[in-house]
């Protein structure tokens, strides 16, 4: 059985779902960030798969931009986490609950 788009997309779906687990269950802000990065990678796998099975490189360009955005997002997220740490001396997202109703 040769590898077709379904394999790639299925793998991407799996990675995405795993990322969701991380985002939902982690208390450490960095753990949440890990989950988000996994989800972004899942999206990139889709793009690469489409690039491979449609013959163009444009999807790869988009993947590159996704990586760029992910880098920027990580930078800002880490800055926010650092501020959180300065304010509360830990990075437990569950303790940051100023939004509580």
């Amino acid at each position: 059985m040769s590898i077709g788009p379904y394999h790639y997309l299925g793998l991407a779906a799996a990675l995405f779902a795993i990322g969701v687990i991380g985002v939902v269950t982690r208390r450490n802000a960095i753990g949440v960030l890990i989950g988000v990065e996994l989800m972004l990678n899942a999206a990139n796998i889709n793009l690469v798969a489409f690039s491979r099975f449609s013959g163009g490189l444009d999807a790869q360009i988009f993947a590159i931009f996704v990586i760029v955005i992910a880098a920027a997002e990580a930078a800002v997220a880490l800055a926010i986490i650092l501020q959180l740490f300065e304010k509360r001396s830990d990075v437990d997202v569950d303790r940051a609950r100023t939004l509580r109703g």
Partner: protein
Amino acid sequence: MQVDLPSYVPWIIFAPAIAALIQHFRGEKLPRKGDLVVIGGILVSAFLSFRLMFEWAALEPGQYFEQTWSWFTLAGGHTFTMGIVVDGLTASLLCVVTLVATLVFCFSTAYMKGDEYYHRFFFWLSFFAVSMLILTLADNLLMLFMGWELVGLCSYKLIGFWSKEIPNAEAAKKAFITTRVGDVGMLIGMLILYATCDSLSIKAIFEGVQAGKFAGSETALTWAGIGIFFGAVGKSAQFPLQIWLPDAMAGPTPVSALIHAATMVAAGVYLTARMFPIFTPDALGFIAWTGGITALLAALVAFTQTDIKKVLAYSTVSQLGYMIMGVGVGAPWAGMFHLTTHAMFKACLFLGSGSVIHAMHHAQDLKDMGGLAKKMPITFATFSIATLALAGAPFFSGFLSKDAILIEAWENGHGALFFIGLGAAFGTAFYMGRLVYLCFLGKPRNQEKYDHAHESPWVMTVPLIILAALSLSVFYDGFADKFYRTPAYAAEFPITETNTHAYWTTGQRPDDFHEGHGPSWFHTVAMLMGVIGLGVGGAIFMSGKRNEKTRLLPSGLHDLAAGKYYMDELYLDGFVASANRLADGCTWVDDNIVDGLVNTSGKGGLVLGVVSADADQLVVDGAVNLTAAATQGAGAVASTAQSGRVRNYLAAALGVTAVAVVLLVFVIG
């Protein structure tokens, strides 16, 4: 015939407006406190005005410039327009305004030098020019009224310019309030016209009148005309509202020259001339008699005044009466012609007096003067020329215009008014002769001031020379024919039953009128009046025994005239005092009756309140508290979902997404 407006015309208004804005915001910080900006603005305006005048003059007779823009629409579909119309009236008045304004502005740079609020003075001057130009160019009564009120405002600010002195502030207030009385009349007139013609556009009003919208209610039209004219009574200081103008001389002299001699006060004459086609014969009679009475009474008061500017002020009132009389006897062209010539020589006289006052270190009383001709030759020469023009001496402009008014009065059958006018003309010549003699000739009566007197700087004398030159009759050859007797704007509206003055409205000069026509004795008499008046006026003082305090009138009449016919007292004791008493009465009623009622009902309310408070606490509050408690409980339940943990929100969002995806794929899809 309507012709499109040249595109530069709005700049006649914009140029001084922009200058005024700059002056207002930056004036104090500009070099020379910004006077050059303002002068530049008015120069542009003057240049464009003259260009416009020549362009208008090049049109076919009967053509005029007009352009209208829509302004705003009231509920009910009443659309107001704003527009500019340029015909002979407008063109000439524009040139008069901008020319005199330019010269006065230049004059002011020297006269006001060193004043603390120099920049503010120039701002108001410029703003006045803008307002006056709006008034002049307007093609509808609303815009005209706006300009009308704005010039009133500027006049108020400028009369009270030295407002640290109480009398000046009082004079400003007086001028403002008195002219406002006239404006009420004008508003009433405008409302009548608007109610009938459904428009404030002058053209539409004329068309409405011509189409017979007032048919069957000529009285209403008469009252509308008198109402409009009442605005002119206030602004042009006609009897019985003339009392403010002499007091307005408290303002700086250039202001007096510009506003209270040449331009603003002439706006009333302009208004009556502009609205002339709507006046019924009854209204015209009222106008003519008002003008005539004003001319004579003011001339008499001028005999008794010892302040140089007051003499000129009453002279102005008198001449304005002349103009109004000219309109009233059915010759608005003559009134406007006199307006033009008068603007020049009266501005010259005022600036000349300003020059004298400047030289005398702000002394205005004739008792300090005398013999100044030697010290101030240029001022004396120009002042004399203007005096000759005012007195109606041959070869001077006043001769042409004043005689035109008198002859029109005679020819239109107003014999009484003709003689009143003749008397006023003699009076005018007489008091001017007195003024010139007391001021410039004879021996100095105050040696100290005389020694310090000096000729004014060139920025003051050059405007004097220009204005004096423009008082010569050679400049006005055919002027009235071209500008005032050639029909233009009003000629679109041919003769109606309510308007019998054919040559104005149809543009056909009656064949019997011609320069030099009329009663053969007329010119001789008129000329003699002026010359004799001047001669007598001078001769009385020649001996040196008499001075400014000499009573020239019969004793009773003198007291009456010197007391300005006690009209100020009449107004103060009559209107103002009764108003005060009325106010006192109202206060008493308010304090005792109205307040009593209020207090009583308040006490009743208090009792009622005490009763209802108990009911309120038990029933209403109970219900409210129950609701609040229920809400609070619900909120407490709901807020558990609002944990503040971003992760929980995310979990919720992703959970919903999961459910949605599963549903979409497996159930719906």
